[in-house]
């Protein structure tokens, strides 16, 4: 697809959409937009080789789960284009970032803005925790730690078939607490799965709060390298750093970019809510008004006229 915006503009657009949605809906995954906006924007706007969307701009309602009696079932992967050999595939491993991913789809013209209005509404496919049938999703990843393994299997299969397309995973640092992540890295390294790429949002946050207060994980880069991956630390808000990191040679090894980020980036007000940032729900109407005013100013938009709800 032709880029009509700069990646910086896409990242700003993601933050604005997530902010506006959260103010309107009395809360949301705002901090994830702060930390991951550049990564998701970079993937969708420049790094991923994707075809034209194959699904309607306005998402269809929930069409049932996979079963033998549901022959018309399909995933939401069509928003990323067809699964053709030359194209890349993307898994959003922490499906809790779905709101950020949906905002990105809108910013790059793969989904209509109306799609976000369906977020977390009963009967909608635009689910709060991205499901297989949600826009831009191809597998269920709401259970954390399974994304990299699935991507490794797909990448092995694509390599075996001689497909040039890569398999990308957007990961979160909390996932390194799961043993399966390390099983996946060792398997990808052992089997030389070097068409597997990941970018990890290292924001040092998890549901209970700061990771250091929940379970210390140490030096992720050093651990990944010891398990056999090629891993690179970068500033996760620096697009040029991403562009350089992805060019890193990694023959026979998966490449994992560790994007160190701030969970308040672009919405400084959220720092007052530290360390509970996983899902920001307003504590009072006064706080909602304050956030609406201050974050809107920082993002360069008008405060949201959200009415009574």
């Amino acid at each position: 697809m032709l880029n009509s915006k700069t990646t910086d503009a896409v990242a700003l657009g993601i933050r604005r959409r997530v902010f506006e949605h959260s103010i309107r809906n009395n809360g949301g995954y705002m901090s994830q937009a702060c930390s991951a906006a550049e990564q998701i924007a970079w993937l969708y706007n420049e790094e991923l080789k994707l075809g034209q969307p194959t699904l309607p701009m306005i998402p269809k309602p929930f069409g049932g789960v996979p079963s033998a009696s549901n022959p018309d079932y399909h995933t939401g992967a069509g928003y990323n284009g067809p699964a053709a050999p030359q194209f890349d595939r993307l898994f959003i491993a922490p499906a809790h970032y779905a709101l950020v991913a949906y905002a990105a789809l809108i910013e790059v013209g793969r989904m209509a803005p109306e799609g976000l209005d369906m977020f977390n509404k009963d009967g909608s496919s635009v689910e709060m925790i991205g499901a297989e049938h949600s826009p831009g999703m191809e597998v269920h990843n709401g259970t954390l730690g399974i994304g990299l393994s699935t991507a490794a299997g797909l990448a092995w299969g694509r390599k075996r078939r001689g497909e040039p397309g890569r398999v990308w995973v957007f990961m979160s640092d909390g996932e390194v607490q799961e043993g399966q992540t390390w099983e996946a890295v060792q398997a990808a390294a052992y089997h030389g799965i070097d068409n597997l790429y990941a970018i990890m949002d290292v924001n040092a946050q998890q549901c209970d709060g700061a990771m250091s207060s929940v379970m210390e994980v140490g030096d992720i880069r050093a651990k990944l390298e010891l398990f056999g991956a090629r891993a690179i630390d970068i500033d996760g808000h620096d697009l040029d750093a991403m562009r350089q990191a992805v060019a890193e040679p990694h023959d026979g090894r998966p490449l994992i970019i560790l994007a160190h980020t701030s969970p308040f980036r672009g919405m400084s007000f959220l720092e007052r809510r530290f360390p509970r940032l996983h899902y920001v729900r307003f504590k009072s109407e006064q706080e909602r008004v304050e956030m609406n005013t201050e974050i809107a100013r920082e993002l360069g938009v008008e405060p949201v006229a959200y009415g009574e709800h």
Partner: protein
Amino acid sequence: MVEMVSRPYAGAFEKYAVANPEVLCLSADLTSSCEVDGFRDRHPDQFISLGMAEQNMMSFAGGLGLAGFRPFLHTFGVFLYRRPYDQLMASVAYPRRKVRLMGFLPGITTPGGMTHQAIEDISVMRSIPNMTILETGDATEVESICEAADSIDGPVYCRVLRGSVPRLFDTPIKVGEMRELAHGADVLIVTAGITTEEALRARAALEASGVSVRHLHLHTIKPFNAQALLDHIASVRHGVVTLENHVTEGGIGSLVAETMADAGVGKRLIRLGLKDTYAHGGSKPYLMRFYGLDALALTRGVESLIGQPLGISEDDLDAARVDAVHSLVKAEAL
């Protein structure tokens, strides 16, 4: 006497996989234990070693399925659902990946004790949407399990026998059907896996005591042809005895009970198997006797069902010859 077949899976898998290049052989460090070591050595390009890491293996297999391959996972049954249950759900069962879960050492067929004995696998798998469940009861079924499993449009869990396996049948598994091994009119006996051989041992003694036995062997546990079972139940006077290498909750005893209850069948049902207990490590004959999974236990169950002692002794059962059984199976579709 019954023919014993050595390692029927080894040859059957190799033959099937070589003819089907989209089939991949995955193993989690139990390659020779699952009789695919020869395949690994002769066809390394079709073999993926994933080490002692079943969670990754399950999701990795989901990814392979997404890439259009049909992975056969080889490990002990317990390691296909206990440790990687979350991955089984999210990466395999929900998206209906064509992943073939080959679970070796079902129930008490291992001296490995609790950690190795898959005694509740059928119960777990039956409650998973999209899952198909097959169970092998003899060498012919083991020889046909790969083709049967690979015919399923979705995930399938198979209880596979290894080592020296008796040949009881001369026709392959036909998914969705059941084998009618005797068609008497007093008591219906329903068995699967290794308990079918026990029922064959018990049958002669039961018949000699004047009990007319109807006997069904199940190789397809899910999906299940409820109407076929109900027809058989309607054909017997007393009721049903099930015998399973599994806990009596959630396995074929429960399957029969649910089928009867759903249809309002008012006959008695006696469910034999592991009675709300773990087993421990020991030989198969010892465990089958100790936990009441053998031919003698089955005759006691029949006695209880018909309400009269039959006076069958261990000697009567030992003397009973197990002949090869010619299938009387009806052509019943899914």
